[in-house]
């Protein structure tokens, strides 16, 4: 939204000074069809799959109609109760929210240190952060499994929460330290002069300015933990402990796949993510572009 408003004032101010006609705006040169035609084609490609899953979730089993009519919610009932997606949903929420909180707190502390201090281990730590982004969690399944087994954390949601947090941390911390660097240190110093301690100054002055960035990082962590599959598959084998992606995989790998239930389960998996994104979309773009300024 910001991006739509931003260019206007500058232009308006510059306009009267120059002869008319020479200053055609950049977007006036693009014929409309060159925007709408490729965009519509791409939208078809994007939206048909979404329509397809809605169609399968809402039409009766065995129907081949291309409109979801007569409307039915039998698949949702079946998947929520018979296939225990209600339980999976609760577990996924626990994993997602815990990962969000843990990642944001730990990354905030570390990010602040990276942004505001010069210390001996800083370079090494930054390098470790960058390198760890290239370490694939999928390839560490076996050692991670052994670690969690020795901690007696297999079949506990804690194992997945820790694993998701650890792999979210590097990027989150790099982004957050970028956000903090964008806040002028003089603001904080002014608060110190006024008698605030470092923590109070941070909470009162810096934290409110970080909100868009934190929303972006936190929601990213939540969505990632919500969506991620492999850790949960490996570390949670007990049925009542599994998360939604694992439940979906179970439905998909059945001998004869119940397509209606699968579609309904998929929609159950998508709803929280859709809600999160609907709320934060505006903050997400500003948050990420703010972080990109000084990575």
């Amino acid at each position, binding site marked *: 939204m910001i991006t739509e408003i931003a260019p206007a004032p500058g232009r308006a101010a510059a306009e009267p000074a120059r002869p008319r006609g020479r200053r055609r705006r950049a977007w006036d040169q693009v014929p409309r069809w060159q925007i709408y035609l490729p965009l519509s084609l791409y939208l078809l490609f994007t939206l048909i799959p979404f329509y397809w899953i809605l169609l399968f979730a809402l039409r009766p089993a065995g129907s081949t109609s291309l409109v979801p009519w007569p409307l039915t919610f039998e698949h949702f009932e079946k998947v929520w109760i018979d296939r225990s997606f209600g339980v999976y949903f609760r577990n996924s929420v626990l994993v997602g929210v815990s990962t969000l909180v843990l990642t944001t707190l730990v990354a905030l502390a570390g990010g602040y240190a990276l942004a505001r*201090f*010069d210390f001996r281990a800083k370079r090494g730590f930054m390098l470790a952060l960058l390198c760890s982004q290239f370490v694939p*969690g999928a390839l560490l399944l076996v050692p*991670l499994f052994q*670690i969690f087994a020795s901690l007696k954390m297999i079949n506990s949601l804690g194992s997945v929460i820790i694993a998701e947090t650890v792999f979210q941390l590097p990027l989150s911390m790099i982004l957050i330290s970028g956000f903090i660097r964008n806040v002028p240190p003089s603001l904080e110093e002014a608060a110190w002069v006024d008698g605030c301690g470092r923590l109070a100054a941070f909470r009162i002055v810096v934290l409110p300015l970080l909100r868009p960035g934190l929303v972006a990082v936190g929601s990213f962590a939540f*969505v990632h933990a919500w*969506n991620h*599959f492999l850790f949960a598959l490996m570390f949670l084998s007990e049925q009542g402990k599994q998360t939604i992606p694992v439940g979906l995989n179970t439905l*998909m790998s059945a001998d004869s796949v119940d397509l209606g239930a699968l579609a309904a389960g998929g929609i159950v*998996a998508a709803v929280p993510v859709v809600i999160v994104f609907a709320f934060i979309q505006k903050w997400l773009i500003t948050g990420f572009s703010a972080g990109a300024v000084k990575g």
Partner: protein
Amino acid sequence: MAQAAAVADPPAPPRRRRVSATPRRLPYLLIAPAALLMLGFIAYPVLSVFYYSLRDYNPTKPWRNGWAGLDNFVHAFTQDPQFRDSLVFSAQWVVVEVGLQLVFGLALALIVNQTFVGRALGRALVFSPWAVSGVLTSVIWVLLYNSQTGITRYLADLGVGSYGTSWLSDTSTVFPAAVVADLWRGVPFFAILILADLQSVSKDLYEAAEVDGASRLQKFRHITLPHLKDAIVLSTLLRAVWEFNNVDLLYTLTGGGPAGETTTLPLYVANTSVDAHDFGYASALTTVAFVILLFCSIVYLRLSKFGGEK
């Protein structure tokens, strides 16, 4: 290193008086939780992978466990055709996916960066698959590709193809079918990053170019593209690593099949360790994957002179 050793910021007078919270130790306290988590759950596992890659280690065959030296690696490169196939397929998968995602993502970003009626809605819809997980992507495309009530049925109704076609279980169609499914989710990633970077192109440059009578293509080539270069390099690299590593989609969509046709190296590693419990050999394969990732990243950053000469 020398500058890094110099302690703390230039001491601002207020800080000396006000903030007594041992500034020397404070940064270490702040990074401690992150550092401990990463040591325990990234560094230690990586080191143990290196260690086990030099051993025979299989919990189901404990009598064979022991030091193996480089045997695992020798075996991988000389006697394991599946390993070679998985490497080839990984390369194919990464190049095709990242290449197509970059092209479509760039085009899409340029389009939705224009001003037009319905832009906000257009952006939201076009970007929406980005948030869809690998598993959910598989669910959606399994529904689309299923042989009974999938898209092929309706195509056959129109006289295209034949009934009962299953693109995912036919070795000649499984690759494009999986590529399209992953593109659906991957293109918005590039589009979002490039769009964010497009916001910071200086408008003055375009105006200057317009005064000089530059065409749209010239403006794209000489202003937009150079500006986007860093973002493109970085997102391409990140995406390539991600596509190489990610197993969610292929694991659930094709399971690496049919007939091992879509098994990437990480998928092969997962199968080797999860199904065959051959942890030593899986660790050796993982080590190979690390080396490949590291090498490709360095070469790529060098070639593209990332961030310009400094």
